[in-house]
């Protein structure tokens, strides 16, 4: 690792201030950033640790919305019972020790094309709340995820909370790449009274996306049969040594059907 200063602010406002420094970078749980630093793929002058800021940790549910503060760990998300589909997703990220450190805000801010949470955020139509030097703003999930590791966050902004409308039923199905346990394809299905959301991660060349054709079919008939006749195009899907675009296309449909079946 290159040398850097580790800054440990006590409040959100101190953190925002520290992030205005040149080449300062926020540090969530570090489960992605620390391995990245070890490979010398990043060279921040300072890391601003968000883990110790009490106002950035916590989960609450009210009015049908689950609010997860940015520095809340996967382990805590897995343990909440207000939104079981999201708990199921969080409980399958990494391993227990990773879930004790990694945070939802960190994952959402990084927007790894194979991260799990973005699929749930898109499928539920979540709102991402970001704070920066000019204050706080709300970003719809549809506008927030902008490609591989790209988001609507501005320089010096951090994710302070994510608000998920809680679906009537939901499920996440992940086909794991066996070595990394990241999804080769992951699908989050969220059923609401008036609509269905289908978020797909691990597959798109431009990162997470909604499978809108399946959403429409499932809105009329929420059963695996509803998408039997649909097919996913391999165009725009990732291909690598683990899977071809065609195989990922196949998996999207299989995982979606499994998720719908598991909602029952």
């Amino acid at each position, binding site marked *: *690792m*290159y*040398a*850097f*200063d*580790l800054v*440990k602010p006590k409040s959100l406002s101190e953190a925002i201030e520290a992030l205005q420094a040149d080449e300062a970078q926020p540090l969530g749980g*570090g*489960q992605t950033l*620390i*391995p990245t*630093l*070890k490979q010398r793929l990043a060279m921040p002058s*300072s*890391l601003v*640790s968000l*883990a*110790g800021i009490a106002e950035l940790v916590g989960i609450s549910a009210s009015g049908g919305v689950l609010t997860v503060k940015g520095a809340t760990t996967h*382990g805590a998300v897995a343990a909440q019972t207000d939104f079981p589909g999201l708990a199921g997703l969080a409980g399958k990220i*990494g*391993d*227990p*020790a*990773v879930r*004790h*450190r990694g945070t939802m805000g960190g994952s959402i801010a990084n927007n790894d094309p194979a991260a799990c949470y973005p699929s749930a955020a898109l499928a539920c139509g979540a709102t991402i709340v970001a704070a920066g030097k000019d204050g706080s703003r709300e970003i719809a999930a549809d506008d927030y995820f902008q490609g591989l590791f790209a988001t609507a966050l501005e320089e010096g902004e951090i994710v302070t909370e994510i608000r998920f409308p809680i679906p009537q039923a939901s499920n996440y199905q992940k086909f794991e790449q066996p070595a990394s*346990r990241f999804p080769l394809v992951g699908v989050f299905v969220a059923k609401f009274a008036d609509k269905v959301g289908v978020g797909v991660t691990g597959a798109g060349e431009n990162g997470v996306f909604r499978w809108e054709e399946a959403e429409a079919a499932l809105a009329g008939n929420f059963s695996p049969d509803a998408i039997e006749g649909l097919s996913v195009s391999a165009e725009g899907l990732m291909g690598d040594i683990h899977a071809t675009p065609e195989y990922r296309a196949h998996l999207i449909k299989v995982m979606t059907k499994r998720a719908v079946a598991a909602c029952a």
Partner: protein
Amino acid sequence: MPTISMTVNGKSVSGEAEGRTLLVTFLREELGLTGTHVGCDTSQCGACTIDVNGQSVKACTMFAAEAEGAQVTTIEGMANPDGSLGVIQQAFQDNHGLQCGFCTPGMVMTAADLLKNNPNPSEKEVREYLEGNLCRCTGYHNIVKSILAAAATLRGEQVAAE
């Protein structure tokens, strides 16, 4: 270099750490606690698993300065006060839960983390909880057996020696 302080295995300790100093490096090189192993250094293998404020973490993927003021337990803290093996350690010995022993500190710490929250785990739950701990010798079978035996002992049940 800044000085940081924490409680490790019940003792207050302090030492010097740069911003980039990993917690595992601090434990091993500054405090001389070499029971915590560095296997992969990429948070895959779990040999460096320790307990920080009541939760298992991979000490190779956390900065020492983030543990400032924390309560830390390492494998050295798992023995009984008289130096004899603790229950989980003893169960690993009794059930041949290790061969080369490199992964064992992490296995024991992960087992302790599991049993703290789930005193009566099923075999499946034990195997799932070991997801982040790799062993290249045992095939895991005797590790799982050791943890189930330790769980029984900690619940106060008599276990027949095999």
